[in-house]
């Protein structure tokens, strides 16, 4: 009963937030505080609610049951986990937003932003808790549409409009596939309620199951940003306001993962092993392609968007492995893999949110997203720098930060594939492990570039020169996430049991891990154990000892001098290594993928030996967009142009059409009227 009040309390709070945003939209500051802080409050309620459900029993509530449109809510452990993820992110992001939107004061309509922001969150929560197909599709599309309006919030910029258009069309196509997948179930169950889908999934013929699987994979994959349906993501996420991109990248694309798990495990029973292979392969491809494009990207928000594709890939690797294990009757391993996926999902939602907020604060204080114009920010905005560094270390999966745990778990669950005793799946799993390793290394490369070029050394432009520290609410918001990603790194033994409960709700196995002293957790039957607290402790001890030693041997004197440049003074930012140069090796390594196009242009003064200026431009090609989507679009456009000729404008032709139709229909009748 209390759950009811709580759930509708959450919704109500967000609605109040939205309403207050509209009411107060004349007074910018007040409006921002009202809408976002109320949202934060609602998020707290959401956290409580989801924890209640995770440790308590399933929450379900039927609304307006008489009507043709049924609205019902169904929150089991899985959806509760996602509501938890949503709420955590929303809490931090909302606090951050109160500071971030100050940039828009006077320029844009804050009420509009706050309103959409709250509605967006509501729609996500409803998606996670919808219990029938029609309602799901409604709230799902509501989520897409609202996020579209958030993306085009700065619609004066043409590229923003383009991004928004690509986004909404892609997501609409995705929704179309979701519809078809649902309709396959409906065709069997003759009911819209998700409850009946599970039975339908049991009784369906294998062919129908496969169709439903493929449609669902494409449909939700589009939202999740799985390669090759990912193309909207690097457009939409950078253009949205940073707090929104934090939510979109951190949470919204995870909702698609939630539905994938729902459909594959709960509805379809994950019965086919090859589904697992497909998911695993797609995940692997997404991971590697995502990070490869992220490495060479110099727009920080685009880079983060690509890295979201990568992380979705890693999550899918876990899910795919889990499906494989489940289909081949190894629930224990299935739950371990699932836990790895869920853990990474949680981590990613946090450190990616953190990094997007960080990008936001960089944008806020330097007004540029181009990493080549940054530099030296660690001195201008030290606090943000530390917080962002934490995010970078987590996403680079370095111990003892949060990303490390989930990637370690993913590796282990892939390694555990040797229990399958079948050649093919083992090889698939191990190959994807190798690719995952490459991905991890490239991620480290990518974010080293991000932090090193962006924050260290000297400012590369006026933007960076005059950067100032982000304001307090932004720092608080990022701080929450930073501390969370440390905690998730060093306290896995608190998180894992919870995730085990959730994974058990669809893999049906609870005892995946055993726990030992020194905050260690082991994977039974294979001696493997990990204890990040211990590692952290040792590292810290060593650092202390070392710094003490260094201090003892005359640590005071430290002559300061210019940077070494073969005798030449290099204290100007022009001599610094650029981001492009930094990622050049990778670009050369994978030039077949990038197909880089470079333009150099030199102007000479007097003698051909003295260059006056030198312009270097290098861009890379989005292979999938270029060779998969553009042809389709061109095809449609050209075909349409051809079709336009039927509109001659002459009334005689039109009468001719009618005559022709009449004749054809007569033939039809004489033929007997059976097409």
């Amino acid at each position, binding site marked *: 009963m209390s759950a009811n009040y709580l759930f509708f309390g959450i919704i109500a709070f967000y609605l109040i937030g939205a309403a207050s945003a509209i009411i107060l939209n004349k007074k910018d500051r007040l409006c921002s505080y009202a809408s976002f802080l109320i949202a934060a409050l609602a998020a707290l309620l959401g956290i409580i609610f989801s924890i209640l459900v995770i440790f308590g029993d399933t929450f379900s509530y039927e609304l*307006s049951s*008489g*009507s*043709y*449109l049924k*609205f019902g809510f169904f929150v089991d452990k899985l959806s509760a986990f996602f509501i938890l993820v949503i709420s955590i992110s929303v809490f931090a992001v909302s606090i951050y937003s109160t500071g971030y939107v100050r940039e828009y004061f006077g320029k844009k309509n804050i009420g509009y932003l706050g309103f959409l922001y709250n509605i967006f969150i509501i729609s996500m929560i409803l998606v996670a808790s919808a219990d029938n197909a*029609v309602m799901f*599709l*409604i*709230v*799902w*599309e*509501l989520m897409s*549409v609202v996020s579209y*309006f958030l993306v*085009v919030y700065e*619609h*004066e910029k*043409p590229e923003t*409009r383009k991004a*928004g*258009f690509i986004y*909404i*069309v892609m997501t*609409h*196509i995705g*929704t*179309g596939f979701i*519809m*078809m997948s649902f*309709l*396959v179930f*409906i*065709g069997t169950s*003759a009911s819209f309620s998700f409850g009946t889908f599970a039975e339908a999934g049991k009784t369906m013929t294998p062919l129908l199951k496969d169709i439903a699987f493929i449609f669902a994979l494409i449909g939700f994959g589009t939202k999740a940003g799985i390669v090759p349906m990912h193309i909207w993501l690097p457009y939409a996420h950078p253009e949205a306001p940073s707090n929104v991109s934090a939510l979109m990248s951190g949470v919204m694309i995870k909702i698609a993962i939630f539905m994938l798990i729902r459909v594959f495990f709960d509805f379809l029973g994950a019965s086919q092993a090859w589904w697992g292979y497909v998911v695993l392969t797609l995940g692997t491809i997404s991971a590697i392609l995502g990070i490869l494009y992220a490495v060479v990207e110099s727009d920080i928000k685009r880079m983060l968007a690509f890295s979201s594709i990568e992380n979705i890939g890693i999550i899918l690797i876990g899910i795919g492995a889990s499906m494989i294990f489940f289909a081949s009757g190894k629930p224990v391993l299935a739950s371990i893999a699932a836990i790895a996926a869920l853990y990474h999902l949680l981590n990613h939602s946090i450190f990616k949110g953190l990094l997007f907020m960080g990008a936001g604060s960089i944008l806020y204080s330097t007004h540029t997203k181009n990493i080549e114009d940054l530099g030296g920010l660690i001195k201008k905005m030290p606090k943000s720098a530390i917080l962002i560094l934490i995010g970078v270390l987590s996403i680079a999966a370095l111990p003892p930060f949060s990303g490390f745990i989930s990637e370690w778990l993913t590796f282990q669950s892939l390694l555990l594939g040797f229990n399958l005793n079948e050649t093919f799946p083992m090889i698939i799993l191990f190959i994807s492990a190798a690719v995952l390793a490459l991905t991890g290394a490239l991620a480290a490369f990518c974010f080293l570039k991000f932090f090193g070029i962006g924050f260290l050394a000297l400012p590369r432009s006026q933007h960076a020169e005059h950067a100032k520290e982000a304001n307090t609410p932004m720092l608080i918001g990022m701080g929450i996430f930073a501390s969370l990603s440390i905690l998730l790194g060093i306290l896995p033994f608190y998180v894992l049991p919870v995730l085990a409960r959730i994974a058990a709700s669809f893999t049906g196995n609870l005892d995946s891990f055993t726990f030992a002293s020194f905050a260690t957790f082991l994977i039974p039957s294979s001696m493997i154990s990990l204890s990040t607290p211990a590692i952290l402790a040792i590292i810290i001890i060593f650092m202390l000892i070392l710094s003490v030693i260094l201090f003892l041997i005359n640590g005071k004197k430290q002559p300061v001098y210019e940077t070494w440049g073969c005798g030449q003074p290099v204290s100007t930012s022009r001599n610094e290594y650029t981001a492009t140069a930094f990622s050049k090796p990778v670009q050369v390594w994978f030039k077949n993928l990038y197909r880089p196009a470079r333009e150099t242009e030199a102007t000479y003064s007097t003698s051909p030996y003295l260059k006056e200026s030198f312009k270097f431009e290098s861009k890379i090609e989005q292979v999938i967009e270029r060779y998969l989507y553009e042809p389709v679009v061109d095809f*449609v*456009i050209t*075909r*349409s*142009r051809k*079709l*336009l000729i*039927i*509109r001659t404008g002459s*009334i005689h032709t*039109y*009468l001719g*059409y*009618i005559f*022709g*139709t*009449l004749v054809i*229909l*007569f033939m*039809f*009748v004489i033929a007997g*009227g*059976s*097409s």
Partner: protein
Amino acid sequence: MIEYLLLTPIITGILCYFTRSRKQVETISILGSTITLILGLSLVLDVYRNGIIVTWQNALFADAFSAYIVLIVSIISFVSSVYSIGYMGYEIDHNVIDLKRLKMYFVLFHFFVFTMLLVGVTNNLGLWIAIEMTTLVSALLIIFYSNKASVEAAWKYVIISTVGITFALFGTILTYYAAVKILGETGDALNWTSLIAVAGQFDPMIMKLAFIFILIGYGTKAGLAPMHTWLPDAYSESPTPVGALLSGTLVNCAMYGIIRFYSIATKSTGPEFTSNLLIIFGLMSLGIAVPFIILQEDYKRLLAYSSVEHMGIIALGVGFGGVYGIFGAILHMFNHAMTKSLMFFSVGNVLLKHGTKEIDKVSGIVKTMPVTGAILLIGGLAITGSPPFGIFISEFTILSAGFLQGHIIASVLFLLFIIMIFAGFFYNLSKMTFGNPKPGVTPGEVSRWTLASMMILVVFVIILGVYIPQDFIEMIHKVVKVVM
């Protein structure tokens, strides 16, 4: 009851003719349409309480389906008369038209409403007369501005729809013949009820022939491809409120005729024949709408083609058949009427402000006219069938009917087409609504009247997207019973 309903618009029209000032004509027209609305609603209630009403030795007749049409017509005509005051007022203020033409406009407007109400409540053979009358009256409305374009449009409209209608008459005669063979030379051979009762015994060959003629005839009026050619011209050249009436209600009246005969013909020819025809025509209309929506340069034509698309969807729904299919189609009629009129109203405001129908010459509406811009976006999403708006519900119902009845390929094509249409439509719409406004466009809405009428429709569009009242559902189920 029915008589009063029919008389009100006529009297209003005549009164409008004898008014002296703008105030008077506006008040009278508002009063008239309000009374029409009230009478219409009361008729609807009456029918749903006490069943079929028949008067005037069976000439006038109202069952659930007629009442449904009356409902749509009276609602749309009411809001559109409210809108007309704002729209025409603006044109008078800017000396586009003078008082005489304004009076003429309202006279014709109410006559037009009368003819469409007549379509709803007349009995079998009268239907043809009524629909022909709608053509003639609306033709006069289309040449309202009597410039080159409007004259051309009107001529095409009259000629093409009259030809179509002539075919429809032939179909009607054939049906009558089939009926006479069973019933003998009695007036009963004209009644929907008696026709339905004995439809099973009709000669299937004749009925096939009749249905073909009916489909082409009323299909021309409904704008099913490839007989839709008059539609974009007429919509884009007529005054915007009239465009709303044409697209919101007139096409529905024509569909009404098709569906009436569908239910008779199906009984004798068996479902396969009629369903196939309807599915083919539906898909063709959808498919032809796609390129014209993607590459459209004129936003009123854009709406016109989207009407073609939606007529196709209704035809598909009926063609898919089954309770879901018919239900979806009937529901879609209502949703489409509401949403499309809403769209027409908002682009009407845009037209008044920008004075051009070219999409590329319009941008940044959300900044110059926030409310209109917002409504334009809502309407655009609604008309392209994205949740949470009414049309999504009906389209999804039709889609699931397709899957349940096993028309998988047709359904998939349907989905493909509406996705492409969504892309094209939204591409054009976002060009208009977003971005920086064009220079020389004065900010601010057109008038309170226009906003009021739009607000009424927005309520319908959104409410029906998330919640359909139980009574309304029962109403539609009654209609479905009539059809099946």
